[in-house]
């Protein structure tokens, strides 16, 4: 393959990836910040009574991890029993939209603003 063909192929592949990104970017519920997907209304109604959805959105866990959190709230924090169907829907939603992600032992630093430092001394 010549270089220019290779570049064109790469651009094509990248644009496909980009389009995929655009399509799969989730819609966000303006009121709660929750990702709009199958089950989010259940989460909205069952899970934002005591605390805001922020506690959910900032977190990531496996299905098992989410279940553990729910059981902890039921055992100690006054969360009522959910029907098997509701629990299933909520767990599936959480595990899909807020899945556990691998972070490694230390992530790269993220710098929001580089700035020229005027040293005081």
């Amino acid at each position, binding site marked *: 393959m010549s270089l220019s063909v290779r570049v064109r192929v790469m651009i094509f592949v990248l644009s496909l990836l980009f389009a995929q990104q655009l399509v799969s970017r989730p819609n966000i519920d303006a009121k709660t910040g929750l990702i709009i997907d199958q089950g989010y209304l259940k989460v909205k109604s069952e899970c934002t009574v*005591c605390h*805001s959805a922020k506690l959910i959105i900032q977190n990531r866990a496996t299905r098992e991890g989410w279940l553990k959190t729910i059981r902890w709230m039921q055992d*100690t924090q*006054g969360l009522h029993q959910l029907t098997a169907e509701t629990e299933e829907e909520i767990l599936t939603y959480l595990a899909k939209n807020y899945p556990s992600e*691998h972070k490694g032992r*230390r992530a790269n630093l993220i*710098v929001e603003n580089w*700035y020229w430092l005027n040293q005081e*001394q």
Partner: protein
Amino acid sequence: MKNKSILRGIHELYRDNPEKADQLIWGREVEPVSRRGFLKKSGLWAMSAALGAHIPFADNMPGGLIPAAFADTDESFHIPGKHPGLIVVNDRPVSAETPAHLLDDLITPVDKLFIRNNGIPPENIDPAAWMLRIEGESIESHAQFSLEELKRKFKHYTYQLTIECAGNGRSEFNPPVPEGQWTVGAVGCPEWTGVRLRDVLESLGIKDDAVYIGYYGRDTHISGKSSLDSISRGVPMSKALEDETLIAWAMNGADMPAMNGHPLRLVCGGWPASTSGKWLSKIVVRNKIHDGAKMTGLSYKVPCHPVEPGSNVKDEDMCIIESMPVKSLITYPKTGAMIKAGQKLSLRGHAWAGDLSVSAVDISNDFGATWQRCKLRQPKNRLAWQHWQAELDFPGPGYYEVWVRATDSAGKMQPMVVPGWNPKGYLNNACHRIAVKVT
């Protein structure tokens, strides 16, 4: 790392639900018919305090209106009496942390101390009517004191004491732990004034079988269920009876802010801040380890023996966190600094070590390959953080990270990577890092 999605500013709160934002941020409720004005003085007071000016036509101010002074700032301001740069980790219940560069003061100003609420703070606090009850099976006589009696009957002490949330740094654990995603700023070291817990307990007679104290506060559970306490933790007698363990009413010489426990709180410096109960209304002296809310299960506990990341750990294999581990921060410069090649960089910050003191602080600009010793000051008193300072040369242009690493008086150092994973994500004391570019 700082998770962008958790940053939530005043604008976002007002966009979501203006009247709710009024209530969350300022405790404001409008007059129900006109939807204007302030139903409670406290809301007006909070908003005026944050604006730094009183609001002459407050009665006409419509509900849900973002104060103009904040309307065109992108800084995330949130909580009455708190610095606009604080980052809200959770808005209900309120939790907010302070970015490292805002912790530069030797003594943390009240507006820069983090907030970790477990419940809904009490409203309409009247310090003149506030009572503290002392009870429990291991105190000779039960008693109650008004705030005024506490101040009159016992000697006052002022100490600078470090308090840090046990979950500070949780956001770095892998696999992630589903709870408040604190980065580095759930720590501070203001001066606290109050009476010694020891003096109060000894005046009533501590029984020989006393093991632990527990506290209760007037905040309520977020579910609204009155049968549940939001949090009721405590410390063993040895910590309770230390000179520096205070029942405090003042921070930096003035009444403390509502969100930090006004009018009365415990302060147990060097231990998880959850032992320093806020809105303090009752202390119990127990003949066993206190079993209040968040003393049991996995809360504020770590595996007694190290576990593989992501493990299930049984309750009985978990041990209560006592002293916090050695740790440090770079508070100047702010991360992202650019300097010219050949310039020296001045750096400074604080270091602390739970019940111990800090014996050395070192910095590195080569990812820990070599370390340079910093100038380190003595603490103002036991359990206060210590200030360090250094000047660093850079070998040439490029991207650098400056890392800081403290060593405690028993010889333990901060790790450079995230330490042992635990089910609730406590005690991450990995060294703090900032990014620097030399051009």
